């Protein structure tokens, strides 16, 4: 009987439009929720079966089916956005590491090591000009002390950059473990939940993105709509099972087996590069400066003669040739008279000329040496400037790329309030129309009832 069937259709319409209204309200409520994707009720017309009979239509009715819920989600775009965001985290971390190292060396300027070196050589020339003056020798010792402490401090600051990266790695491991656990929980919830649950999927995607940003983790689809998470070639999350990472030693390792984590991207990759490549490289460059300073000055100094005609004295401690340890030798520290300013081959017929500053002059000339500490330091700075510049522009470029990828992914999934408003209005109208149908059927039935009275 068609009349009763339309009542059922109208009822299903009411229910469906209410559902649409509910979902629209859910969408609007989550308009600013991170990682939320717009949900839609998949309205499907319920197949027709116009069987006659008073209550026959209850199971096979016309109308609309509103059981299915889908989310606007493009897997490829989302994966791309996640990958680019991971690269961005890595590029930003590298760039801030380089900026931190750059700040250790305030060049060009009047406070950097270059300036200290210049002043050091200049003091040697001061001693060469007046070798008899204790003031000039004392000034040299104080400039040398300033230079060595600057080198010591730069080395300590570099170590500080390394230590900061190590500390960050250890807190990163804790974050990764927490996220992995949450992900395993979500996986469990997905397997136990009946039907599709878009909110759970969104929640999982947010966790996956966070993991990707931290470690460059990648996902592989698994059975039952789950995903497994891999870092490098090793699984971090499989279904409800998670591996653990350990960062307490400063390097990221797998707790199970204690092997190093090979993070392909993300913050972890940048931190690992900082500790294994960037900092050691600049420390080695700084050590080259220190070693060349110690070797160059000592070679000339130990051949020279001091005010008491003693030769063979060292200026820098020859056993401390790194930037972290460089120091004045015990020969000259606090003993300006022991600075060997006099030439080894004495021009005069008599004992060493007290006012002969030829050896000091030779040391001052190291300033111009193309293999000397100044050149080594300039090489360090020019390399650092270039690398920092490259890191900064890479981060800026990656930001554009990541912003584009994120925008593309969002354009599919994020909430457009205009759209929701339109849906709201359309659901409201449809609800009204369905109610109108019920009223019409009711009226028809009343007429029918009255005609039999």
């Amino acid at each position, binding site marked *: 009987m068609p009349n009763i069937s339309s009542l059922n259709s109208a009822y299903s319409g009411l229910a469906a439009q209410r559902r649409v209204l509910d979902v629209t309200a859910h969408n609007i409520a989550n308009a600013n929720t991170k990682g939320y994707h717009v949900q839609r009720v998949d309205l499907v017309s319920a197949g027709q079966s116009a069987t006659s009979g008073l209550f026959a239509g209850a199971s096979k009715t016309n109308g609309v089916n509103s059981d299915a819920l889908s989310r606007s989600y493009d897997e490829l775009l989302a994966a791309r956005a996640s990958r680019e965001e991971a690269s961005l985290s890595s590029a930003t971390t590298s760039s801030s590491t380089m900026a931190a190292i750059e700040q250790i060396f305030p060049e060009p300027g009047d406070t950097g090591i270059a300036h200290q070196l210049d002043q050091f050589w200049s003091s040697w020339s001061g001693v060469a000009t007046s070798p008899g003056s204790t003031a000039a020798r004392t000034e040299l010792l104080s400039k040398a002390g300033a230079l060595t402490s600057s080198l010591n401090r730069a080395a300590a600051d570099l170590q500080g950059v390394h230590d900061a990266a190590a500390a960050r790695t250890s807190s990163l491991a804790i974050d990764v473990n927490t996220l992995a656990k949450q992900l395993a929980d979500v996986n469990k919830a997905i397997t136990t939940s009946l039907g599709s649950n878009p909110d759970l999927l969104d929640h999982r995607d947010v966790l996956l993105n966070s993991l990707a940003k931290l470690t460059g983790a990648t996902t592989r689809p698994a059975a039952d709509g789950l995903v497994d998470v891999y870092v490098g070639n090793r699984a971090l999350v499989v279904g409800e099972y998670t591996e653990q990472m350990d960062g307490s030693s400063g390097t990221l390792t797998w707790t199970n087996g204690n092997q190093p984590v090979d993070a392909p991207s993300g913050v972890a990759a940048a931190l690992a590069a900082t500790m294994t490549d960037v900092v050691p490289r600049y420390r080695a460059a700084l050590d080259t400066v220190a070693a060349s300073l110690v070797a160059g000055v000592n070679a000339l100094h130990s051949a020279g003669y001091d005010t008491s005609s003693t030769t063979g004295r060292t200026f820098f401690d020859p056993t401390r040739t790194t930037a972290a340890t460089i120091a004045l030798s015990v020969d000259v520290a606090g003993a300006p008279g022991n600075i060997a300013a006099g030439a080894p081959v004495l021009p005069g017929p008599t004992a060493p000329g007290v006012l002969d500053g030829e050896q000091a002059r030779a040391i001052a000339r190291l300033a111009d040496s193309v293999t000397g500490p100044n050149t080594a330091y300039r090489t360090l*700075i020019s390399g650092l400037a270039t690398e920092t510049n490259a890191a900064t522009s890479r981060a800026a470029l990656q930001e554009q790329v990541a912003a584009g990828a994120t925008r593309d992914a969002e354009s599919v999934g994020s909430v457009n309030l205009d759209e929701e408003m339109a849906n709201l209005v359309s659901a409201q109208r449809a609800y009204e129309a369905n109610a109108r149908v019920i009223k019409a059927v009711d009226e028809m039935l009343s007429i029918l009832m009255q005609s039999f009275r």
Partner: protein
Amino acid sequence: MRVTNSMMLRSTLRDLNTSLGRLQESQQRTTTGRANLRMSDNPTATTVAMSTRQDLRRNEQMGRELDDARSLLDAADSALTNGLTTLSRAREVAIAAANTGGASQGASREAYAAQIRAMRSELMSLANTKVGDRSVFAGNAAGNAYDATGTYTGDNGSVVRDLAPSLSMTVNVTGSAAFGVGGSGAGNVFEVLDRLATAIQIGDPSAMAAEQANLVSAADTMSSATAIIGVQGERVLEIASRSADDKLRLQTQLSNVEDVDIVQALIESKEQETRYQASLQVAAKIIPPSLMDFLR
């Protein structure tokens, strides 16, 4: 492409942030007066600036050496010039003494001899001229160049100064070169004057004649030393003027790579300010409205 509210909000915020960052950088350039705030802003300029700075420091350091060289040479020059005057006066006295014959002139011979001895000590003090703690004629030795007996106590060391990159110069003459080598042949000028005074005192005409001749050759030695000092002084002056030119050139070069063009920086900063204000206004207009404003 589907555009949503959160996308728009995010991109507007990002653009505003970028714009504000640029504004801040350009203002920082203007206030610090530096073209590059960090070395990574312009790696090439950093390298150039560093080597220019080093050259400038070296130039300043050599400027100090130049000053030192000039005072050493000036002292030596005036000592030798005064010494030559003293020597020519000594010759006049010697000639006058030679023309005074006879034993009755003993008193005036004593006076002549005393004059010669006074000149010797005058010359001695000139020979011991000092600049700071350094006797200019003593080579690299400490203390005086000559002791009271006229013995050279200096050494034969050259006093070398680095006056320009890879240009070092000797800026002294030793006592031996200026006043003669003592102890052999005619001896140094002090020995000559000593013997002359004695010869005048005892009235020995042949000895007086011989010492007069020695005096002439001592004066020759001194004037050639003066010439050497003069040549050295001229070169130092020439190098000093070149060094001053270099300094100016280096300062200009450094300013070119390090300093900001203030007019350009101001215009840039104004431009960024305008751009920032414009984006703020646009953002204020774009973000609020939605369909909700029209459904009432």
